[in-house]
């Protein structure tokens, strides 16, 4: 793709890479100033609206406030950090739930590859199926969670199908059924986007490669493994990162499907306490923004690991822009 672009616009490329020194009197031209102003708008807004949040959250970690007002902030001898030690059971539980949500995103990705592979077969009606498969993606996770709440209810469709009488979302004997109910609601909804993306990725693989493989006598699996998988690696990379982000910040489904229960913030034994949900409960509902900030920073640092990798990759690939 990069090659064709360079080939099509050779003189353009010269203008770009030829970093001729600009004389001073041409530096502050009207056009340059207008360009600077325009491209600064989103960057300045980003700085204002996120910069302060980051600074404030760091301050809040080291003290306590009344009604989240920073002017009442008082140093509290790392009490927020000490609380992590006391609260480690709940945090560990919410990490486990969050990891299940990340697993749900990976499962969705796998479903997307498989269904896109079926959709790429030369059979009639694939366009219609592709259209249908995207529908759950445009539904809100709130409404989807309500739908699954009804299905998983004690007089719902699932019990009728299995012949059981379990309250899946409030199961005292095995609370983790709630976690897996949220898992199911996520993997029902999430694959649509990946399916459409993979369909277009499959189409963009050069058909001559398959032709050559046919001549060499490769079987369907070999073709999939040696041609298709490498051909979709860029999109997979992007979707994996988006999936990790989405999984780690799962909130809507957890909040709807896991309301406060008699022995936990989020369902029985906190079986629905995704980390974002815990941050919401601590920070917004209980007003402990200091503690919520620490949890947010933990989440942020975990999320930075794949992001740093992506930023490096993106910036390297931008060298030609």
């Amino acid at each position, binding site marked *: 793709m990069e090659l064709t*672009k360079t080939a099509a616009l050779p003189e353009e490329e010269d203008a770009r890479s030829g970093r001729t020194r600009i004389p001073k009197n041409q*530096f502050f031209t009207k*056009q340059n100033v*207008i*360009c600077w102003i*325009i*491209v*600064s*708008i*989103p*960057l300045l807004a980003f700085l204002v*609206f*996120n910069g302060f*949040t980051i600074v404030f959250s760091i301050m*809040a970690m080291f003290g306590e406030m009344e009604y989240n007002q*920073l002017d009442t902030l008082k140093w509290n001898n790392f009490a927020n950090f000490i609380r992590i030690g006391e609260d480690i059971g709940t945090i560990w539980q919410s990490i486990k739930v969050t990891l299940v949500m990340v697993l749900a995103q990976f499962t969705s990705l796998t479903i997307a590859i498989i269904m896109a592979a*079926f959709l790429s077969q030369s*059979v009639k*009606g694939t366009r219609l*199926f592709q*259209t*249908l498969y995207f*529908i*759950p993606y445009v*539904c*809100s*996770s*709130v*409404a989807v969670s309500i*739908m699954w709440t*009804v*299905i998983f209810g004690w*007089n719902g469709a699932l019990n*009728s199908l299995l012949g059981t009488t379990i309250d899946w979302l409030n199961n005292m004997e095995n609370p983790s059924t709630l976690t897996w109910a949220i898992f199911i609601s996520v993997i*029902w909804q999430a694959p649509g986007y990946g399916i*459409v*993306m993979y369909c*277009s990725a499959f189409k963009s693989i050069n*058909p*001559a490669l398959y032709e050559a493989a*046919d001549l060499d006598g490769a079987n369907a699996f070999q073709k999939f493994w040696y041609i298709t998988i490498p051909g979709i690696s860029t999109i997979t990379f992007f979707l994996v990162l988006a999936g990790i*982000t989405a999984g*780690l910040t799962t*909130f*809507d489904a957890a*909040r*709807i499907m896991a*309301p406060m229960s008699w022995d936990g913030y989020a369902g029985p034994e906190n079986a629905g306490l995704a980390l974002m949900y815990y*941050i*919401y409960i601590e*920070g917004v509902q209980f007003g402990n923004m200091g503690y*919520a*900030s620490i949890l*947010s*920073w933990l989440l*942020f640092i975990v*999320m930075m690991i794949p992001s740093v990798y*992506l930023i490096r990759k993106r*910036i390297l690939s*931008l060298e030609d822009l």
Partner: protein
Amino acid sequence: MEKTIRQVKAKKSFPVAKLVTYIALVLYTLILFVPFLVIFCTSFMSDYEIGASEFHLFPYEWSAEGYELIFTLDPNAVNGVPSLLIGFFNTMWQTLVPTVVSLFVSALVAFVYSKFRFPGRKIFFLANVFTMMLPLGAFGFVGYLFYVNIGWVGGARGLLPIIIPGLFGSAGTIFFLRTYYDSALSNEVVEAAKIDGAGTVRLFFSIALPLGKPAILAQFLFAFVGGYNSYSAQLMYLYNDKSLWNLQLALSELTGMLSEGNGYNNAKCAAAFISMLPLILLYIGMQKYFIEGINIGGGKE
């Protein structure tokens, strides 16, 4: 080229492979649509029928009771107007205003990055990419701390953190539209117009906006879906003022209250179903643009 391969493939492959494909496709369709069918049918049962009998898919007697209940039994109604209606109205403007303004800004910025050479362009764009990649989703709820301290929380002021930060363009959209302008809008056209003496902003309106339409529309659709389904921001900032709730917040609060009594499954299903319906219809009407939108982005990633 592609056709010949397809023909070769078609000759080779057994009908068994085709059959397996169809079975898989239909099976997945069922997995996706049976849950819809369940809530659709449940929404048309009477509360008595749900409580008095075992689970069954199709109602013994079709009843619109669920749909009446969500409008008459709504504890969150403001001045007699049901919260779902208020929510729908609020969703529309709380989504459209920031989406349209932000898209406008994003397109302008993307156009400038794509077609103008100015000192520092590369550094600005790298900064843009950097902001796009930072996983700030983690700070979603901590943002509350900032907005409380600048007085943007409480009553109608809760609208400010929902509307204002979204007005200044989004890094991801800028990246996407810039890639589109790089490939779809030829430099010659822009250069010719520049020689004619058109200014940056005029060039944007006369060339970039009309020619960027497919990509801008795709971005609009996805931003609109995101806004329509937005939940956590409204939950944080507008919870105390029912007249400002958006649809998702109204829906979650309404069904939350209905579940407390362990009944009214018909009303819950009805509420969930009619909340999903507008976007499903929009998607079916515009599905070509949705799919194209993903394909434009997908090809470039």
